[in-house]
């Protein structure tokens, strides 16, 4: 895929693409470090590689294409500004770091919307999906994903479902309670206990 639509390829970008499968996370880390010092070409490459994951996250929480597109753009503008703090080594994996910025932005939008007035429509949700290939992950990143999946599955059903609804769809306690048809108190304590157990499980 060409970065700017022209026929001339940026040789650095092509080299990076070829190294991705073996060492994806490190390459994204390099692109972020480059971005931190103002390299827009590197940031563009980072964007091209990660945009479909970020868009998927935004769509699932906001369930509105126009808002998801805006949230996506906001996410990358923030990522550019904050790239230096990632380069400090505090950000976990680059994709996870971007996902956190994206989720945060989407949740800000959701919180400002007030009560959710778009009822969840499974048919509509399916229509939005336009599957894209997942960026290659390195071993450590896959392990991280596997670990949290394993730990989630070890939770009680209410705890797990509540945390998933909160994470993937950005639902509030009240909305989760409505979706699961459970009392608000049960959902609140379930989420808290679930988070504590996740932390314990991941530290093992």
């Amino acid at each position: 895929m060409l970065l700017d639509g022209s026929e001339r390829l940026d040789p650095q970008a092509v080299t990076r693409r070829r190294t991705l499968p073996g060492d994806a996370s490190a390459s994204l880390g390099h692109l972020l470090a480059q971005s931190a010092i103002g390299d827009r070409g590197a940031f563009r490459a980072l964007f091209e590689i990660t945009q479909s994951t970020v868009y998927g996250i935004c769509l699932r929480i906001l369930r509105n294409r126009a808002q998801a597109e805006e949230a996506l753009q906001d996410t990358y503008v923030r990522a550019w500004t904050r790239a230096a703090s990632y380069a400090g080594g505090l950000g976990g994996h680059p994709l996870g770091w971007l996902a956190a910025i994206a989720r945060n932005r989407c949740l800000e939008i959701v919180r400002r919307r007030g009560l959710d007035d778009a009822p969840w429509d499974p048919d509509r949700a399916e229509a939005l999906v336009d599957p894209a290939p997942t960026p290659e992950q390195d071993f450590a990143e896959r392990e991280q994903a596997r670990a949290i999946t394993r730990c989630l599955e070890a939770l009680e059903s209410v705890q797990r479902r509540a945390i998933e609804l909160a994470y993937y769809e950005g639902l509030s306690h009240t909305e989760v309670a409505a979706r699961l048809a459970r009392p608000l108190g049960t959902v609140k304590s379930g989420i808290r206990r679930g988070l504590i157990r996740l932390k314990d499980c991941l530290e093992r």
Partner: protein
Amino acid sequence: MIDLLAAEYVLGTLRGPAAQRFERLLRSDAGVAQRVREWETRLSGLAHGVDPVTPPVGLWQGIEARLPGAAPAATSGGRSLFDLRGWRRLAIAFGLVAAVALTGLLQLFLAGDRPTCYAVLTNDRKLPVLVVFDRRNMQELAVLPVGSALASRDGAARLWIAVGARLTAVGTLNPDGETTLRLDKPMLTAVMADGARLLVTVEPVAAAGAAIPAGPTVAEGTIALLGASQAPARGI
């Protein structure tokens, strides 16, 4: 329970006035910010459960137009020159964590000897403990501590480079971590290669100077290039 508030903030279930109060706390308290980062890392594995969706073409133009700062001068391959603004940003990011490191970084810059590579070495909790830079023109390696992570250790901290499966000692670090290592050209070239792996072990006094590590690894990281892949021209 700050940790639980941080968890719910990252998850997204902290809302309304409680969320606003927490955000104020987050902005003012580095410990709270650290908790939030830890939860973001913990939950980041969930991001892989999202199905990627191809966005419409053309979003990049909107993003690029909003990126602060003038576009850097073009160089071959479209990569930016190593510039003061970016360097300050990087230095400040590290400086927020440790005043000692910031002083060292500014000194490096003011000396006019801009590094071409760096590595952030992290401990087993993925927190940065050391920053390593080359001072190529001086044939030196600068190692700067982040905080006082290396301060209380029994034994000598040694820096190693991993070349394939073999570890070669680079040098011994001062007790507080801040060290300038004078290296011969081949070692400097080996260490300052994009993707080279560095390790720090704590060696028992009796084993100091041995050819292979005897003690535990306390930090590790990978070298990354800064700016252009060739050493930048001297002078602003």
